[in-house]
């Protein structure tokens, strides 16, 4: 099949300045020499997108995904290589980008449409549709500065989607506006797919990629590290996130263990999946093992465990009191929490352990979110919890 977008060995080099000199005066004073480092925001990225394909691009902040999108859109030009795009392209990097607050909605539709590359005639032909889609007919002659942010986004999306682009680039813009409008946007994007148009979706939300695309790329520090089905790419993306987190936490671990908690030292923690594999799926169980050393042999304590997602939301928590277990500390002890199943959907979750003195409630040791495990969802379910569900549909009188 013929390609719609071809990214041909694209690199983008940026200069990083320790200090920005944005005046000629400073430049002259420094005799033209400004200390800087060069770094590649994109490094030899090479892929192509077939006509009618919907792909997702995943990556952390700073992974180069936005730079890539800007290169495809033609906002930035690559330092090396080239991007070829067939057909009309609409880039939704920010809804309503290029709207002028002092102009009316009507004027802005023309200006924005024209900026996106459409002729006046095209926009005139589509004008009524755009207004209808945005649901702003009452306010179309009002200055845009009086619009709410939701109205602003609605008009922006309406222009971009209604001028019939062949290729649509979307950068996390679907997360604006009220829910009804969001649903409308997603429906419009799906219609787009049905018409055989090409879509590139850039996001750090794996769920969006899973639900809307057939292929996903993962960028890490400007390098394409995965180009596969959404499921596989999401897995690569997750592993990369975990790797980064562990690196960051190594120093923290030492500090926690050595200086703060003097009475109990947690020597070791191990997460043992009851089924083997790098990540677990919802049906497998999980065993968390903590080894500790303490000076408080025989003292009664309360041990608690918490699961958090990566945003820090508490997913689950329980302590030894709730489980009606009496804990007396040992010199060298081992604490094991055994989960028989983990009914969660996609995500990386962290585990925290806390040991408190039962009498005083004093925190004796707290290992906070240092261990992580990943749940990989092999089904099409989305969200947080893996609920068992059955769908029944029949005529009313027969059921």
């Amino acid at each position, binding site marked *: 099949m013929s390609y719609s977008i071809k990214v041909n060995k694209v690199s983008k080099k*940026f200069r990083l300045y320790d200090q920005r000199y*944005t*005046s*000629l*005066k400073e*430049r002259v004073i420094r005799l033209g020499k400004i200390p800087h480092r060069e770094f590649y925001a994109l490094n030899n990225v090479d892929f192509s997108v077939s006509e009618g394909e919907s792909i997702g691009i995943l990556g952390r902040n700073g992974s180069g995904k936005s730079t890539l999108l*800007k*290169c*495809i*859109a*033609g*906002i*930035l*030009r*690559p*330092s*090396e*290589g*080239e*991007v*070829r*795009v*067939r*057909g*009309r*392209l609409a*880039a939704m*990097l*920010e809804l309503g*980008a*290029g709207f*002028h607050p*002092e*102009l009316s909605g009507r*004027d802005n539709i*023309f*200006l924005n449409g*024209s*900026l*996106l*590359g459409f*002729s*006046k*005639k*095209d926009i005139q032909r589509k004008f009524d549709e755009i207004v209808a889609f945005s649901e702003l007919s009452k306010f179309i002659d009002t*200055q845009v500065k009086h619009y709410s942010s939701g109205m602003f986004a609605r008009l922006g999306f309406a222009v971009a989607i209604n001028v*019939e682009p*062949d290729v649509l680039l979307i950068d996390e813009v679907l997360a604006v506006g009220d829910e009804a409008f969001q649903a409308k946007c997603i429906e419009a994007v799906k219609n787009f797919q049905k018409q055989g148009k090409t879509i590139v979706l850039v996001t750090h939300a794996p769920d969006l990629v899973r639900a809307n695309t057939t292929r996903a790329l993962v960028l890490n520090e400007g390098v394409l590290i995965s180009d596969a089905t959404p499921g596989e790419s999401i897995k690569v993306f997750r592993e990369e996130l975990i790797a980064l987190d562990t690196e960051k936490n190594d120093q923290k671990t030492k500090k926690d263990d050595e200086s703060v908690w003097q009475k109990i030292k947690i020597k070791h923690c191990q997460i043992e999946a009851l089924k083997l594999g790098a990540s677990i799926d919802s049906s497998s169980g999980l065993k968390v093992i903590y080894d500790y050393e303490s000076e408080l042999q025989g003292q009664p304590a309360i041990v608690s465990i918490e699961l958090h997602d990566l945003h820090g939301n508490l997913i689950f928590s329980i302590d030894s009191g709730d489980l009606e277990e009496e804990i007396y500390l040992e010199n060298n002890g081992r604490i094991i929490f055994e989960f028989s199943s983990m009914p969660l959907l996609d995500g990386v979750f962290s585990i925290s352990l806390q040991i408190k003195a039962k009498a005083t409630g004093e925190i004796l040791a707290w290992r906070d979110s240092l261990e992580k495990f990943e749940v990989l969802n092999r089904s099409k379910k989305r969200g947080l919890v893996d609920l068992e569900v059955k769908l029944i549909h029949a005529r009313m009188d027969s059921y």
Partner: protein
Amino acid sequence: MVQQLTKQKAERVVAAKIGLGERFLNLFKRRDLLALLIAKELSVKYKNSVLGFAWSMLNPALMLAVWYFIFQVVLGSAIQYFAIYLMSGLLAWNFFASSVQGATTAVVENGEIVKKVAFPRELLVIAKVGQSAVFFLFQAIVLAVAMAVIEYKPSLQALWLVIPAFFAAALFGCALGLILSALNVYYRDIQHFVEIALFAWFFAVPVVYSYTATLGPKLSSKGVENFLHAVGLGWFHLPWLYLADPIAPVILSFSRAIYGLRYGNFGGQIRPIVPHHSLVWFLGLDLYSIFVGLVLFLIGLKIFSRMEANFAEEL
């Protein structure tokens, strides 16, 4: 456009360099956008003022009145109808200066669009020149009305000179605008330098004084010629240097076309206020300016094209 697309979808290439040919083609293809950008600038500027567009006519009219009062009534200039002389030169100068001044900040001012939307950015610069052209028209109307009121007759057979002169100013303004607007993205103080430079430049062209009556004779005086001869530059004439400024011919042409050929009494000597030469002489100078403007425009587009690649990051 739509039918064409169903046959063969146009392919667009984003690479490190864009050829000049493609740039010109883009400019032509996106003329709708250029018109809208100019309209945007104008309507944003006047939407909130009560008098709206009338204001932009009132401004030059008031200026005309003030200049007339100072130079004719208070100072008593040797130039007859000084206000008309001044306004004909100022018409051209204001167009050029506001083009350059406006264009310099064009990219930075529209940073939000430049960062988020892909389009030929030079349109922002050209739109500023277009906007200045609209003001030029307003001022021309004011001047025409003033001339009609005092029954001042322009030299009709020379009036066509404003066309090549205007074109030269537009081209030269675009060229400078392209270079300065790109530089201003990287060095934000360029815009202040431009302001000062334009102020100085204003006095280097014959708007508030007559070149032939005051500066011209001094530049080609015996003393200067002798000095040049002594240092081995006998072939060189200082007036050449003065006229080498591409804007000088523009101002002279406007004065010749609108103010016409008049003489004044300067310290006992009767001298022409505007150079007493054939219209072909003026046209020749204008063609020279157009040539310089064109060369500089191509260089400017090249520079702009190079610097543009990183605009979205620098803004």
